[in-house]
């Protein structure tokens, strides 16, 4: 395949590859930035809701004050007192404050939901859940989160169970953040991230389209540049072809004498000039030799033809023979010179 051996095509291919890598790098970075911006916003929303729920848990509604007997107000809780064992107390009551109700529910495109559980001897007990808390997530996510936090519990390291030690998981089109409170309740808040994923998908396609367009423009520009850069080579080649075909007067047109190719062209031109001079000298020599050799032949031919035109006296014939002899001598002399 001749075309793939040409410098033009190889340059074009390498240039295209480099351009592709650069564009992919830029596109990938842009995509990642957009992704972390989207998920950062989602995570912020999730954390806000977790803290709203955690606050609601610590601050039981006033009507239920008599039912939260086992839960002294946080300011009365001694700092060094270990949290009471879960099995010793009934499940705490929880009611979502009405001013926070709008944070959860199906009216939001992200469909935020929550689930609050408490780990007991007999496994996890549910304290509260939002209406839109749906099962498909539960078995896996709850199991994973439960295991994670139960491990923390059984390690008996209450100091580690600090608020803010949030754990976030992605599960299919859901994103779930969970927190374990000092009082051992686990708060999960999840949401649907379909809209964000859809938007990221669109962003990816847009980036790919823009990247493809830039790649095309770049390739076209690169092709133009390569053609321009190789133009002198084509000119040199054309001149060389004409010269090899026999036209020694051809010269390469040197537009930019200072460039690398210009210098090459100048060197080649000098070579061609010397070649032409040598060739012309040789031609001239051949012509001169032919001239020198032809003159004696003309002399003899004319002499003999004139002599034979009519009857002549002996002196005339002698003259003719002498002239022919001079012609032969001259011819021999020139022949020796040419040899």
């Amino acid at each position, binding site marked *: 395949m001749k075309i793939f051996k040409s410098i033009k095509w190889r340059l074009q291919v390498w240039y295209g590859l480099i351009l592709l890598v650069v564009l992919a790098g830029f596109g990938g970075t842009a995509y990642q930035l957009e992704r972390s911006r989207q998920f950062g916003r989602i995570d912020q929303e999730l954390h806000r809701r977790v803290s709203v729920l955690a606050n609601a848990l610590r601050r039981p509604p006033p009507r239920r004050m008599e039912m939260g007997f086992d839960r002294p107000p946080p300011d009365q809780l001694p700092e060094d007192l270990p949290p009471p064992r879960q099995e010793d107390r009934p499940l705490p009551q929880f009611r979502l404050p009405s001013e926070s109700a709008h944070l959860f529910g199906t009216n939001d495109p992200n469909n935020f939901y929550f689930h609050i559980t408490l780990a007991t001897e007999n496994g996890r007990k549910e304290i509260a859940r939002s209406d839109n808390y749906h099962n498909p997530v539960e078995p896996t996510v709850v199991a994973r989160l439960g295991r994670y936090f139960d491990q923390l519990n059984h390690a008996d390291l209450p100091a580690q169970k600090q608020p803010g030690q949030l754990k976030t998981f992605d599960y299919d089109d859901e994103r779930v953040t969970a927190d374990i409170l000092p009082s051992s309740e686990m708060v999960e808040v999840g949401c649907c991230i379909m809209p964000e994923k859809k938007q990221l998908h669109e962003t990816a396609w847009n980036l790919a389209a823009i990247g493809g367009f830039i790649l095309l423009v770049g390739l076209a520009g690169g092709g133009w540049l390569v053609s321009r850069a190789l133009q002198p080579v084509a000119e040199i080649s054309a001149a060389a072809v004409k010269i090899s075909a026999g036209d020694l007067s051809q010269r390469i047109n040197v537009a930019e004498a200072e460039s690398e190719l210009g210098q090459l062209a100048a060197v080649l031109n000098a070579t061609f000039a010397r070649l032409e001079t040598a060739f012309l000298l040789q031609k001239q020599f051949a*012509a001169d030799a*032919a*001239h020198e050799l032809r003159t004696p032949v*003309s*002399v003899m031919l*004319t*002499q003999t033809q*004139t002599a034979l035109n009519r009857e002549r006296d002996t002196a005339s014939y002698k003259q003719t023979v002498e002239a022919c002899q001079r*012609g032969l001598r001259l011819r021999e002399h020139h022949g020796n010179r040419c040899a």
Partner: protein
Amino acid sequence: MRILIVEDEPDLLASLAQALREEGYAVDTAGNGDDGLFNAEGTDYDAIVLDVMLPGIDGWEILKRLRKTKKTPLLMLTARDQTRDRVKGLDTGADDYVVKPFDLEEIFARLRAIIRRSTNKTTNVLEIGDVKIDTAARNVAFKDKPVELTAREYSLVEFLALHRGEVVTRTQLYEHLFDENESSLSNLLDVHVSNVRKKLGAEFIATRRGHGYSIE
């Protein structure tokens, strides 16, 4: 017909001159470019045979300078047979071009051709009344019978016939019929004219007294 040969090779010059003289031409010779140019510019030749390679001024230069003043038919003679040289010769103003070595017959024919062209004739045969002149065969017939003419007499008839209707002066006749080496005795021409009148009829050549001769 008077012809100038410019050629530097003496043997070639001598034999060519001899051959042309034997053909009935008056022949002047020049052995180098300077003499050649001097002669060519100073005399009205009927044709010039010019070698290209000459000592002194070369053939190209002679041709170039001569063409500024004269339209004399000119035959280039050269050993160089490259197309470029032939084209150059013809473009500079030569009427024909012969490459050495050549046959005398060819030189004769080409000379006749360029002279014929210069006098605006299309054929070699001239007919004047009962007289028929064949310039190729160099013979003359009167009332369809061949007439014996000496070379000089033939030249006289041919020159006057080629300039038919014009008055040709005695000087012109001397210039074209005799070469530079012949003494121009005035009665020599009268003898030739009288001989021609005897052979071709007294009215063939008319005398313009005080001017010269003419053929009507």
